[in-house]
């Protein structure tokens, strides 16, 4: 990336406060997830002398029900949290875009079939479907979890992309490509896809927001097998396993994951709204 482009992006961010605040939050979380585990070791061995130890210099967020340092759990958990939502976002966007592009460009019987499928998938309630799938499949593989989380979110994007393609394919240069005998798939992925990239990018962010909501829910409700330090799992343990929620001096343990979940969710929402503002100013 050229220095100039970086400067442009920075100017836009500074002007759009929502995008700025959102990107700062997201970046800090990414830094925490990538670099954090290198700096802070995770020691899951029980230390019964420091069960529910209050925040201190040695343990900035205190300790949990078996005396494990909460900050290190949060930091290592950030990895699981971000990895899962990132994969889910990618899968949603890939399936949604491909379906939408094909449906919109080829039209006819292909479109009728795909569009009916999309309509049907859209009527199935999202979170219950995800919970049922997660409960049945019982996987701990991040890609499978991503697939479960995308179970019906891809359909929204497919529908939106399809209508965009309908308008784009009438444009002159597409006609020109056709006349030049360029293959259909080449037109779809070489000509149309690049135009839609910003739009797909915004929808990637929306998909990530949705995936965070659903994935924390899955771990919180306890339907996915243990990923020991996922923040949703931490909440699950605090609420249902260890009974920490009833222990008056364990408040920091209950509150810590809540704060990080809310902060990340707020960051993602602000950033996605901000980016949407930048690309669709008329929606303000």
């Amino acid at each position, binding site marked *: 990336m050229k220095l100039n482009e970086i400067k442009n992006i920075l100017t836009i961010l500074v002007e759009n406060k*929502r995008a700025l605040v959102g990107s700062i939050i997201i970046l800090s979380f990414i830094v925490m997830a990538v670099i954090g585990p290198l700096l802070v070791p995770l020691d899951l061995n029980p230390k019964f002398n420091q069960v529910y130890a209050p925040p201190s210099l040695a343990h900035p967020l205190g300790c949990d029900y078996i005396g494990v340092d909460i900050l290190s759990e949060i930091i290592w958990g950030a990895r699981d949290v971000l990895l899962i939502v990132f994969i889910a976002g990618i899968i949603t966007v890939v399936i949604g875009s491909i379906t939408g592009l094909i449906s919109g460009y080829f039209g006819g019987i292909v479109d009728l079939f795909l569009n*009916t499928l999309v*309509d*049907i998938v859209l*009527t*199935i*309630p999202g*979170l*219950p*479907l995800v*919970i*049922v*799938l997660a*409960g*049945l*499949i*019982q996987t701990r593989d991040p890609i499978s979890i991503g697939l479960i989380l995308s179970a019906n979110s891809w359909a929204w994007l497919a529908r939106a992309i399809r209508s965009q393609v309908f308008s784009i394919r009438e444009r002159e240069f597409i006609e020109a490509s056709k006349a030049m005998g360029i293959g259909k798939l080449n037109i779809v992925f070489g000509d149309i896809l690049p135009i839609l990239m910003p739009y797909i990018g915004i929808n990637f962010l929306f998909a990530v*927001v949705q995936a965070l*909501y659903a994935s*924390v*829910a899955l771990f*919180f*409700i*306890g*339907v996915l097998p243990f990923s020991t330090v996922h923040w949703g799992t931490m*909440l699950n343990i605090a*609420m249902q396993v260890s009974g920490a*929620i*009833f222990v008056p001096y364990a*408040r920091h343990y*209950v509150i810590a994951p*809540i704060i990080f*979940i*809310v902060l990340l*969710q*707020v960051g*993602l*929402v*602000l950033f996605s*709204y901000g980016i949407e503002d930048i690309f669709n100013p008329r*929606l*303000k």
Partner: protein
Amino acid sequence: MKWIYRRVLLALLSIFFTVVLTFFLIRLMPGNPMDVYVQMLIRSGRARTREEAIERAKSLMPLNMNDPLWKQLIDYLLGILRGDLGRSISSFTPVSEIIVKSLPWTVFVSSMALATSFSIGTILGLVLAYKRGTTFEGFSVAALTIFGAIPNYIMALLLFYLFTIVYPIFPMRGAYSSTVTPGFNLNFILSVLQHALLPIASYVLTDFSGWALGIRAMASTVLGEDYVTVAKARGLRESKIITNYVGRNSILPQFTGLILSIGFMFGGSPLVESIFTYPGIGRFFASAVSARDYPLLQGLFLMLSITVILANLLADLLYTFIDPRVKVGD
């Protein structure tokens, strides 16, 4: 007219698809439901030997697992048409009975929550649109965005933690206190409200911002329309312009959202209801998942999907009546 037929056909197709999906979803998954059933019987002490458990499981299973798949599917479909959704594995009660018992609680809480958040959100959104560009507006929009970003189950957990444990003001579980007699008496009604308040608040606090931001965006567009300027030029009262001009035109699109939400109302949230141990559909759904209670899961999921599909249909059909501009026929 042709459009209506197509729309209804799509809804029926979706329902059929969902029914088939629930059938296969559970049959094709790892962990045969029969095995789960058998283990459940042994663990709960209802059968002493494995053979006995298998015999009982067979008699309790709604379908004969030895039949070919297509025959099972047809039996399943016929069962649904008769209203027979099988029996819960964990409680041995018919699934339809569980739905009948738990649905009123969920509908009660969700409808109260929906009505409250829709009204608060709509009024707030109109006020914000009218106060465009003020500090009050900027501050409120920021606050609303943040509120809207909080997942409702996190809000529920916070409220539960704060008001039943840290400050034990509200009851922790159930839909009413065991000391009152259900029926039409003041004590019962008060107890029901007391138990429902926190779940309702969890939904309202996280949902109202979405309604408010939605109508604010609509109203900002409407405020720029010629007919609003003309209405001012015509010397109409401000109150009349806000309600009949800005309000009516911005609320219209909100109605589609409202009717769609009515569909989701029947599901409740598995998480929020579990946190408050509220005996609604969502709570049974969550426990069915963790207990791998397949018949119950199937029945609840089917009920949920069908209400959502019907609400979708209703939203599309109603919209053509609410908005005089929409002409049926695409």
